[in-house]
């Protein structure tokens, strides 16, 4: 008996054997986190949603989580262990867990998996993601109005489509209200490293940026901006309200709780099916944090109008005419981007300088 069949057999025993012994066992739900639950950003919000699941179902559900799991072979080990320990549903909450999730899911056909921000699915693997670019459009709109140096700094994490969408959406909407705006983009190559993020924010401020957008998870750039003085920032993943009203003037808030509750419920009543959802401001998965009084009233009003138009579907943040960075046409006048192109987005729009690292 090789290792794979051993794992499959033990999974089968757990899946079929355990329920037969005790019918009213709680549904066991596992969560794999990329950062610590106390990061104040991305992982913090996933953990809030986990707690919401516990509150909703009480004793009928049992949740376990493992934090700060590196994206790689270690993730596979953690997931395998969760599955062997009888998890019925496992949420893997970072892009880099995609292939590990697919591998482990193939070994445990009776365990359901939910992978965040990826694009691969299988019989027992669903993908879910939030349309963060909708929030980025609102941020870009505010940033374009606020900047006086016309330099906006952007701290990228990894050069993956989700981050590139955000940069493009923010740039297009900053450019719309301020034609002279320029983006300086720094890749931190990490989701969470406060010292590195603070350093990146300082470098951008030193090079003239007076608005900083971040796609990394800690509040360190907020603190750096506060120390520098006249610099504006936006909360990322979580509200980061402790830095309001300045430097944090608004935020993108991830709200995973409704989706997690729905999916756990589906596993309980046996209606879970594989799916691939991409929810935005409309469904409430992307929230726009309160716009503070540091933003002029008319800018606040136009930003909220933009938010509402995106929410009711009357406006798409990627509406043509939009050219690619090299000048070739991407979207014709009035055309909107399709999800497939967005999910694989690997190019900057016209006007952004620099290359996306390979």
């Amino acid at each position, binding site marked *: 008996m090789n290792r794979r069949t051993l794992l499959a057999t033990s999974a089968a025993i757990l899946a079929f054997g355990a329920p037969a012994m005790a019918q009213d066992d709680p549904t066991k739900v596992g969560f794999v986190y990329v950062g610590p639950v106390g990061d104040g950003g991305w992982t913090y919000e996933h953990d809030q949603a986990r707690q919401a699941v516990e509150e909703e179902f009480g004793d009928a559900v049992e949740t376990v989580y493992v934090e700060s799991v590196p994206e790689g072979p270690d993730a596979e080990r953690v997931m395998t262990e969760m599955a062997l320990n009888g998890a019925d549903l496992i949420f893997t909450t970072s892009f880099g867990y995609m292939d590990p999730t697919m591998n482990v899911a193939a070994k445990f056909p009776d365990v359901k998996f939910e992978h965040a921000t990826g694009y691969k699915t299988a019989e027992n693997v669903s993908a879910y993601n939030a349309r963060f670019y909708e929030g980025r459009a609102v941020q870009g709109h505010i940033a374009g109005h606020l900047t006086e140096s016309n330099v906006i700094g952007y701290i990228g994490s990894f050069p993956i489509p989700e981050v590139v969408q955000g940069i493009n959406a923010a740039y297009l909407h900053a450019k719309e209200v301020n034609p002279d705006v320029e983006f300086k983009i720094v890749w931190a190559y990490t989701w969470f490293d406060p010292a590195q993020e603070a350093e990146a924010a300082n470098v951008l401020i030193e*090079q003239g940026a007076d608005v900083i957008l971040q796609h990394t998870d800690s509040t*360190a750039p907020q603190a750096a901006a506060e120390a520098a003085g006249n610099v504006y920032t936006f909360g990322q993943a979580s509200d980061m309200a402790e830095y309001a009203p300045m430097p944090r003037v608004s935020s993108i808030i991830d709200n995973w709780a409704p989706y997690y509750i729905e999916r756990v419920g589906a596993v309980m009543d046996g209606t879970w099916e594989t799916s691939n959802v991409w929810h935005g401001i409309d469904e409430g998965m992307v929230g726009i944090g309160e716009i503070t009084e540091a933003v002029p009233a008319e800018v606040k009003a136009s930003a909220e109008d933009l938010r509402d138009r995106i929410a009711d579907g009357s406006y798409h943040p990627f509406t043509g005419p939009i050219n690619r960075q090299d000048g070739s046409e991407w979207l014709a006048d009035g055309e909107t981007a399709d999800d497939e192109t967005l999910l694989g987005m690997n190019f900057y729009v016209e006007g952004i300088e620099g290359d996306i690292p390979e």
Partner: protein
Amino acid sequence: MDLSSINPILLLASLMVAATPILLAAIGELVAERAGVLNLGVEGMMITGAVVGFIVAVNTGSPWLGFAGAAVGGAALSLVFGVLTQYLLSNQVATGLALTLFGLGLSALLGQGYIGVKAPSFPDLDVPLLSDIPVIGPIVFRHDPMVYLGLFIVLGVWLFLNRSRAGLILRAVGENHDAAHALGYSVRRTRMLAIAFGGACAGLGGAYLSLVRVPQWTEGMTAGAGWIALAIVVFASWRPGRLVLGAYLFGGVTVLQLNLQAAGVAIPVEYLSMTPYLATIAVLVIMSAGRSPGSLGKIFHAAR
């Protein structure tokens, strides 16, 4: 590409700041290793210092007391390592790794009520007159006091190791503990003191992150700085002077690669990020491994 947007003065000034936490942690580890103790728990002691320093600073309102608390916290944790390896004769590599894991967990536990809390501010020290010198002034004389304290500690360690009798004993213990024991020196006591000094310095380095550089508490915030400190000690071939060079090289590359990116230079950052490690390996090859303290990492027992 627009290199003119990089201000070399600000670049060099931020280099000194970026290098300070790893410099502090590395100088402590250097003393421990010169006494023959390989403590791989630097990361754990740093993060413990970061959280203890933060807690003390927030509750007392004084960053200075915070740094003192961080030094005590780091030293206390290192003494756990000291008792295990020097008195109970456990393996230093395994115990050091365990200390890192323990420190990461302990700090997360201690820091639970302090997430999102702001630290008291720690003002820069404008050295009078000197800070007005053009070019040199802003680079060298406009930092917070810890940057200078770090350099003073390095100078002090150099004087101690090379110009004092106690330093000679410490080096003797590190080079050949049996000979030092035969001469009547207390190997254990020397090593316990060196370990505690290493822990205190690592604690200061961690607190520099949580009180000055970031400045706030987040779990896992050292993010590998302790391992870089260990690499720098090897890079410096266990000499305090070269340690400063190594720390500035590592710190400089971090700052430089971010600056180049923001200026739009298209060099793959991976190359820059790996240069300090490549330099460490190159130094190791050139120097050959024979220069490390003779009893480094070996277990000492008087009856053997």
